[in-house]
C-alpha cells in the first residue's frame, strides 16, 4: 500500500470533529469553532443592549464592567485549572475569603505595608492549594470530599479570625483595583489579560501545561507515559489557589476594604463562567479565550437584567434561562456544523 493511498481526501466536515482535539492540545487556532459561537452570542447581546440603553456604549460602561469581567475571569480560572486536570475545587471562594482576611489582618494588625500584605495574602493561595492537593493525592481521598471539607475549614477560620469585622484598605492601596489608564482601561483588566495570555501559553506550549491536560484527559495513560500525575494534581490546586488569592486581593483593593464575606458567591460564578466558556467538566480541556468570553457573557447577562425592567424578583430566573440559552445556542451551532454521521459518535465520547 503506497503512502498517499493511506490518507483519504478530507472533506470540510472534518474541522468540526478535529477541533475537538485541537481545542485541547492545539496551538494555532486561537479561536476554535466553539468560541466563535460565544463571541457571536456576546456580540448579539451587546447590540441589543446598546439599542435598549443609549448610554451602554461608553467608556464609562467599559471601565466599570471590564473590571467585573476581569474579576470573573480570575475566579473562573481558579476552577478551570482544576477541571482541566480532571479534578475540581469547591473551596475557590473559601480560599478567597481566607486570603482577604489574611490581607486585612496583615495590613491592620501586623501593620505591614500594603504591597507586602498583598504578597502575604497571595502566598496563602498556593499554600492552601498545595495542602488540598497533598491530601487528595497522598491519602487518595476524592477531591470533592477534600475540597468540600476544606471549604468549611477555611470558612470557619475566616469567621473565627475576623469575628465578622472587615478591614479597611488604605487609599494608598486602591490604585490596583480602582486605577486605570486614561480613565477607561482599568489596570485590573490589563493585569488579567496578561494572566490569560500566560495561561494560554502555558497550556498550549509548555511541557508543564501539556502534562496538566494529559493528566485530566486520562490519568492512567498519563502515568504510564511517565507523567507524575500526583504532582500535576497538586500543581493544579496550587494554581487554583493562586488565582483565588489574586482575585481576593484585587477585589479588596477595588472595594476599598477586606470583607470576610468575600468569596461567598464565587463557587457558582467559577462554574458558571468556566462552563459557559467551554471548559470541559471531564477534564483535559481549557480555553482561555473561551473563559474570557464566558465572563463577558455572564456580566452582560447581569447588566442586561438591570437594564430590562422586569420584576427584579424574577431576575435569577432570567439569569438561569440565559445561561442555558447560551449553551444551547452554542451546542446548536456545533450540532448544525456536524454531519449526521458524526452525531451518533458524540454520545460515545460523552460516556467515556
Amino acid at each position: 500500500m503506497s503512502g498517499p493511498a493511506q490518507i483519504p481526501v478530507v472533506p470540510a466536515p472534518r474541522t468540526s470533529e478535529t477541533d475537538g482535539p485541537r481545542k485541547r492540545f492545539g496551538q494555532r487556532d486561537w479561536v476554535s469553532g466553539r468560541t466563535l459561537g460565544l463571541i457571536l452570542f456576546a456580540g448579539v447581546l451587546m447590540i441589543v443592549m446598546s439599542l435598549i440603553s443609549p448610554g451602554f456604549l461608553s467608556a464609562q460602561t467599559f471601565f466599570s464592567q471590564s473590571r467585573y469581567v476581569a474579576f470573573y475571569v480570575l475566579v473562573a480560572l481558579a476552577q478551570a485549572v482544576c477541571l482541566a486536570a480532571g479534578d475540581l475545587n469547591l473551596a475557590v471562594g473559601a480560599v478567597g475569603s481566607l486570603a482577604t482576611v489574611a490581607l486585612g489582618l496583615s495590613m491592620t494588625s501586623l501593620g505591614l505595608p500594603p504591597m507586602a500584605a498583598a504578597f502575604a495574602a497571595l502566598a496563602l493561595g498556593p499554600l492552601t492549594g498545595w495542602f488540598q492537593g497533598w491530601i487528595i493525592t497522598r491519602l487518595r481521598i476524592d477531591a470533592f470530599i477534600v475540597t468540600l471539607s476544606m471549604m468549611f475549614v477555611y470558612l470557619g477560620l475566616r469567621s473565627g479570625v475576623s469575628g465578622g469585622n472587615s478591614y479597611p484598605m488604605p487609599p494608598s492601596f486602591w490604585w490596583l483595583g480602582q486605577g486605570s489608564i486614561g480613565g477607561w482601561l482599568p489596570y485590573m483588566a490589563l493585569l488579567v489579560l496578561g494572566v490569560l495570555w500566560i495561561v494560554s501559553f502555558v497550556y498550549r506550549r509548555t511541557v508543564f501545561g501539556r502534562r496538566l491536560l494529559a493528566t485530566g484527559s486520562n490519568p492512567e495513560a498519563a502515568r504510564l507515559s511517565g507523567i507524575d500525575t500526583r504532582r500535576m494534581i497538586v500543581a493544579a490546586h496550587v494554581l487554583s489557589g493562586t488565582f483565588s488569592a489574586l482575585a481576593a486581593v484585587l477585589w479588596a483593593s477595588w472595594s476599598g476594604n477586606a470583607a470576610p464575606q468575600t468569596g461567598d458567591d464565587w463557587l457558582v460564578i467559577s462554574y458558571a463562567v468556566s462552563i459557559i466558556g467551554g471548559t470541559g467538566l471531564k477534564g483535559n480541556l481549557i480555553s482561555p479565550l473561551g473563559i474570557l468570553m464566558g465572563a463577558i457573557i455572564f456580566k452582560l447577562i447581569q447588566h442586561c437584567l438591570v437594564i430590562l425592567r422586569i420584576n427584579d424578583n424574577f431576575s435569577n430566573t432570567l439569569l438561569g434561562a440565559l445561561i442555558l440559552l447560551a449553551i444551547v445556542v452554542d451546542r446548536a451551532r456545533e450540532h448544525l456544523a456536524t454531519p449526521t454521521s458524526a452525531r451518533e459518535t458524540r454520545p460515545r465520547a460523552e460516556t467515556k
Partner: protein
Amino acid sequence: QQRRAAALEPIVLYLPLPHPYCTAVGKGGEAYSRDHGVSVRVVVGQESTQANVSTNIESLFTLGYGAFAVYPVDPAGAKGLFHRLHAAGRHVVAYGAEPERGTETPFAVATDTRRAATAAAEKLVRLLNGQGRILDVLESSTDANTPIRRSAIEAVVARHPGVSIAQTVGDVTTEQKAREKIESALVARGDEIDGVICTGYTTTVAAALLLAEHNRRSGAKRIRFVGLDTDERVLAAIRDGWVDATVAQNPFGHGYLSCALLDLLRQGWIPRSAYTFVDSGSVVVTRENVDSFQGGIEKATAEILAELKTKYLRAPAGG
C-alpha cells in the same frame, strides 16, 4: 438624550434581595413617590452580598442614575462603591445599617444597632426579673453588626449580676440552621436556659417558632424570649402569648426617609454636616402593644420627616 432622561427615574431605592424587610423598605419608597410625585425605581438584587450589591449598583450607575439609596450589606465594603458614586457627583444615602466611618455619604437612615440590641437585652433581663441564664443567638458571622450586637448584650449582662450568658450560638444565615443550633442548645441544656435573645431576622423567626412549640408543651418550663424585627409569625406568637417580645425596626421609614433625603439633595439642599446618622427609631413590641406599635413607629417617621429641612439639611444657595 431625551429618551434617556425620560427613561430614568430621579431616585433609585436598592433592595439587596427579596425579603420581608426589604419589601417593607420598598413600600416606604413607593409611598414617598406617591406622596410627592417623584418617581422612584425600586431595584431588587439577587443575594445579600456586597459583591452583588456593587455589581448591580455599578450597572445602574453606568445607566446614568443620579441618586441612590443603598443598604450597605457590608458596612465597610460599601466604602469603595460610595466613593465611586460620590466622586462622580451622584447622591447616595445609606439605609438599614450604618456604614463604616469615612464612607462618603451624608446620611445613614437606620436603627441604632447598639441601642436596639441594648433595649432588647434590657427587656429580657426585666422579663427574667434580673435572675437567670441567657442563650444569645447571633446571626451572620460576616456581618459587621454582629460584633456590635454581641458586645451590647454582653455589656447589659455585665450590669446585672443575677444574669449570665449560658451560651452564645451564631454563624447562622438560614432559618433552618438557626433552628438546628437553638434546638441543639435547648436539648443539650434546656434546664439551664431561662431566656433566649435573638438580634437577627432569621434567627428571631426560627427561635419564635421553636419556643412557641416548646412553651406550648405542657409542663415545660417557660423560656423567655426577645427578638428583632416584626415578622408576621413572630407577632402571631406574641399575640398568642407563646413568646414575649421583639424589637420593631422601622423598615418603612428606612425607605421613605432615605428617598426623602435623596429628593432634597437632588433639589440642591446641602447637608448641614459631612455625615449624619438618622436614627429611624425602634420599639419594643410585647403582647400589650402588638397591635398598636405600628402607629408609634409611623409617628417617629413623621417627626423625623418634619425636621429634615431644619435639622439635617440647609436650603440651596439660590432658593
